[in-house]
């Protein structure tokens, strides 16, 4: 991956597969004239994106803007970025709304079930009986419209809940 020095605090990276995973917020990505590639770069933390077809003056201006902590998005790709933000906000809102239907205790049970714990292990962790754990699980599955434990775990993963299996 080519990452030339710019003389400022800005790093320039040329887009290539696999997608970049920049850690710095001062990264400017130069890549294809593609909104999807721009969304990938920005989604991975890039502060700016310049299509490779743009002039060197545009790149220089972008470097200056990023060095001033300004986001740089091609004006032609603004719509794509806005649509992505709308989509992302909808997903988050949906997840939050789904979790809101659960009681506090049910959320605790859900978090443990997501890690693969059964009703006995959940009961042990939370100081409740296996029968109570089973009732909570049944209620959670009904509220989230999950037909199996596997689907429940998949639903948790989609919501960003940690599903790393735990020792029982």
């Amino acid at each position, binding site marked *: 991956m080519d990452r030339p020095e710019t003389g400022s605090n800005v790093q320039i990276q040329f887009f290539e597969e696999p997608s970049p995973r920049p850690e710095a917020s001062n990264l400017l990505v130069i890549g294809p004239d593609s909104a999807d590639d721009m969304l990938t770069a920005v989604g991975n933390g890039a502060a700016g994106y310049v299509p490779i077809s743009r002039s060197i003056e545009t790149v220089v201006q972008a470097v200056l803007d990023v060095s001033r902590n300004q986001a740089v998005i091609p004006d*032609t790709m603004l719509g*794509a970025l806005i*649509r992505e933000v*709308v989509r992302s906000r*909808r997903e988050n809102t949906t997840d939050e709304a789904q979790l809101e239907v659960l009681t506090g205790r049910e959320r605790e049970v859900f978090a443990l079930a997501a890690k693969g714990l059964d009703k006995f292990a959940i009961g042990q962790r939370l100081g409740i009986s296996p029968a109570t754990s089973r009732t909570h699980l049944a209620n959670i599955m009904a509220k989230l419209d999950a037909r199996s434990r596997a689907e429940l775990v998949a639903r948790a993963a989609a919501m960003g809940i940690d599903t790393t299996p735990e020792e029982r």
Partner: protein
Amino acid sequence: MNPHDTPRRRPDVEAVNQPGVQALFDPETGAVHDLNPASMAIWEACDGLTEIDELAAAIATLSQARPADALQDVMSTVAQFRELGLLAE
């Protein structure tokens, strides 16, 4: 118009969205409407599915503008599209 409206652009209106050039061509009237990049982004979001307040919230997030200001800007822009007859009824 209210924030929960989902404006839909007329499918026959042609959009040009190139570096430095954002414009709409209305084949019914032959008119060309020059837009700025933000207005073009709003035009592209007029898909009949996106609510005005969703769009405004996204713009506020990206531009760090006050949500109320973003909502006013979006509503004003959509109102102009409507006045120009560019939106489907």
